[in-house]
């Protein structure tokens, strides 16, 4: 386990994980929520996509086969999905999912670009860069402990942040030659 001397937020935590993966030459890095929402049994499915189907980034989605419920939280998810669709022409059903698997290419990207966060706009960036992103149906539980870092004010800030980033910054990403 790597522990940071200063708490510097979720993004920093993910980035240090990516640096660790690069340092020890890992093939796949997995982003996984520790609050009981995610089920480790589905990780195999994500890893399979990368190993067997040549996918670069596999996302565990709740809504590939199932329908999205109409709640406030899912409204935000829908808006982000629409923005992603507009900018990349790809359908990402569960953009805010925190269960993702990245291959070497994606790990390298995380290490070389400090502005990449474990958020939907990074998915847009990666699609734009030509990485193959695929969603895999998984089940998620309600969190068992801990609280979401989003409250009313923060979720508005989050949405504005994501929309600006997806529509005006990430959408102008050029494909790497």
């Amino acid at each position, binding site marked *: *386990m*790597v*522990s*940071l*001397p*200063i708490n*510097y937020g979720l993004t*920093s935590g993910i*980035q*240090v994980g990516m*640096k*660790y993966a690069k*340092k020890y030459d890992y093939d796949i890095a997995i982003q996984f929520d520790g609050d009981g929402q995610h089920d480790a049994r589905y990780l195999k499915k994500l890893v399979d996509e990368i190993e067997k189907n040549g996918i670069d980034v596999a996302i565990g989605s709740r809504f590939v086969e199932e329908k999205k419920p109409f709640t406030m939280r899912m409204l935000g998810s829908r808006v982000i999905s629409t923005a992603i669709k507009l900018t990349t022409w790809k359908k990402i059903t569960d953009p805010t999912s925190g269960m993702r698997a990245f291959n070497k290419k994606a790990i390298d990207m995380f290490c070389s670009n*400090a502005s990449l966060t474990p958020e939907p706009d990074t998915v847009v960036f990666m699609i734009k860069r030509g990485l193959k992103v695929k969603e895999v149906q998984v089940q998620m539980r309600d969190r068992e402990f801990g609280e979401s870092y989003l409250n009313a004010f923060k979720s508005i800030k989050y949405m504005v942040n994501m929309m600006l980033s997806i529509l005006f910054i990430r959408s102008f990403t050029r494909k790497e030659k």
Partner: protein
Amino acid sequence: MSITLRIILIIGSILSFVLCVRKIKQAKLKVENSIIWMAGSFILVLMSIFDKFVGWLATKMGFMASVNFVFFIMILFLIIQVFIDNMRMSELNEKIKNLNHYIALKENEDKNKEK
């Protein structure tokens, strides 16, 4: 510009200038960071002394009163300052984060070596 405003500007500039110099002596401010403030206060003093020229320039540029021109310059100056500060803050943030990562990875590596 009214004589009162000119006096206020001159006094304000001198005060900020003195403050800058004192903070540098106390080593609470770096010289390169204070230069911009000293230059700013110097320009304000110049503007309050040569108010005829400022008035002429203001009318040429379409300002209703030379006071507006003075305020405009000050606002512009402050906006640029805030923007530069923001940029520096992001830069520092990035550096601290990388240091943080470096320390964490290093500690992890050392711990594994001990085993």
